[in-house]
């Protein structure tokens, strides 16, 4: 059955509050009609896990938006601020930029960093009075992971809350149809993050003794003429900003799950050997970034749909992550899925897969492990509050009581 562009577009009401809060039924309906939909003249949506994993990482799937997609009148696009990072580069430049961080995020180093996360979490828990309500998202998700990233980078803690919301604002522009006033708000958020970060990086640059973090390594490379100032700054902002907010959503989702399913909390406590699979399943059901967007630079075909070079392809992560062809009872939490039916796209895939995913997974495991070991229950002390666009989700508040 072949839909018109209007009919296909109506399947994905990107700006609808209900769709944003729970896009999964809409994905299922759309998938039942066809695995690939053309939703505008030059936009396609791919729903199946197999099609997504195969196609999204093909070398022809460029991450850089072709100029034809620029919206007239609103310049500059706030995200051009990251033009000199892995986010916007394709190979071979991408390879060069990715190498800047590789050494800091090896499986071996992750062990060191996760021990820091452990210590920061122990300190935060130590400050809680018995029965005190705590914001599990900010105090136990954002803070310990942000502090860990600060140590990796050797950066000061800074205005964590200010930066969190500046990032949120900056990300708003990436919604499919951002709406009135978002451009200015996004640009303001971006400028705030860059100004704050640049101030700290300049301070490090003029310090008598260099520090021992990743940023010091970037500064040294800049000193040798191997990196431009923009490359140093943009990569620093990217890491400094993503250390807390992204894992925090996963961690928050873990707290919610522990509150809803004490049996799973007990299992997490008693069986350390399941933790890796548990965190992976948590990631499958709770992606933070919700859509992978790519622009093929060659004509390609997905499920007999011809997609011309220069189109925009949206791969909704939630659709692939809950494809019933791969995941039995896709909406259920089940950490015992076999390995071949547990691979999800929450951390992306291929060349552009999240460079910090090992760290995020380890941090989540450490924090949830501490909670499960030290407490017998997690109780929600109020409705969890989320903020959402069709591209991104974050917790605003997640009040819990630990006992």
């Amino acid at each position, binding site marked *: 059955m072949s839909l018109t562009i209007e009919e296909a577009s109506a399947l994905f009401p990107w700006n609808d509050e209900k769709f944003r809060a729970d896009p999964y039924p809409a994905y299922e309906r759309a998938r039942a009609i066809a695995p690939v939909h053309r939703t505008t003249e030059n936009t396609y949506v791919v729903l199946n896990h197999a099609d997504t994993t195969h196609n999204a990482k093909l070398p022809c799937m460029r991450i850089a938006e072709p100029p034809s997609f620029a919206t007239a009148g609103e310049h500059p696009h706030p995200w051009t601020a990251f033009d000199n990072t892995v986010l916007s580069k394709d190979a071979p430049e991408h390879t060069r930029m990715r190498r800047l961080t590789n050494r800091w995020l090896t499986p071996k180093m992750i062990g060191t960093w996760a021990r820091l996360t452990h210590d920061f979490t122990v300190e935060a828990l130590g400050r809680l009075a018995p029965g005190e309500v705590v914001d599990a998202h900010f105090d136990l998700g954002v803070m310990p992971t942000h502090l860990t990233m600060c140590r990796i980078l050797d950066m000061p803690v800074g205005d964590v809350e200010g930066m969190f919301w500046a990032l949120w604002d900056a990300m708003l522009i990436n919604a499919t149809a951002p709406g009135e006033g978002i451009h200015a708000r996004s640009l303001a958020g971006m400028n705030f993050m860059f100004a704050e970060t640049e101030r700290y990086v300049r301070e490090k640059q003029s310090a008598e003794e260099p520090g021992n973090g990743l940023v010091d390594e970037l500064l040294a490379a800049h000193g040798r003429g191997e990196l431009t100032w923009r490359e140093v700054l943009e990569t620093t902002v990217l890491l400094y900003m993503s250390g807390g907010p992204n894992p925090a959503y996963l961690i928050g989702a873990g707290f919610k799950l522990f509150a809803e399913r004490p049996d799973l909390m007990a299992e997490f406590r008693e069986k350390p050997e399941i933790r890796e699979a548990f965190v992976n399943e948590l990631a499958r059901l709770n992606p933070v970034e919700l859509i992978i967007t790519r622009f093929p630079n060659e004509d390609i075909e997905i499920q007999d749909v011809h997609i011309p070079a220069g189109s925009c392809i949206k791969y909704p992560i939630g659709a692939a992550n809950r494809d019933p062809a791969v995941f039995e009872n896709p909406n259920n939490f089940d950490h015992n899925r076999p390995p071949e039916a*547990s691979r999800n796209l929450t951390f992306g895939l291929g060349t552009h897969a999240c*460079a910090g995913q090992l760290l995020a997974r380890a941090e989540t495991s450490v924090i949830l492990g501490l909670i499960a070991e030290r407490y017998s229950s997690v109780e929600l002390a109020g409705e969890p509050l989320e903020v959402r666009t069709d591209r991104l989700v974050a917790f605003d508040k997640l009040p819990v009581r630990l006992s």
Partner: protein
Amino acid sequence: MTVVHVLYGTESGNAEMVADDIAAAFGDQGYETVTAELTDVEVSDLAAMQIAVFVSSTYGEGGLPETAAPFHDALLTERPDLSGVRFAAFGLGDSIYETFNNAIETIRTALLELGAEQIGTTAKHDAASTTPATELADAWARELLTLMPA
């Protein structure tokens, strides 16, 4: 006693992890092992190694990791006689790339050309598979152990 040198080139540490696993497997069987990143290995030292296990990922577009490239360049320019050297090869890659596991092939080709003899099969870990690299490394090392001279 035979000393087993485990030499690795890596970008993000997976090959390093595999090198450690292989060294541990040999260590468990009583072998003396030396693990080193290829940046710390002199090509001129290679000829004196009886057994060298090479571990390398592939990066960029079929390229060698940054830490393996200078070693490979030096092999090609210095052209040491490796006829007394026996080596094994373990690659890491991702089958989505057309250049799947190119780097370990590049290294193998150079070693064979210089007279070294390969023992065992070339392992090619695929990041797109569901097998953890550690698991493949253990299985492959066990297999390799059966081929070691007494």
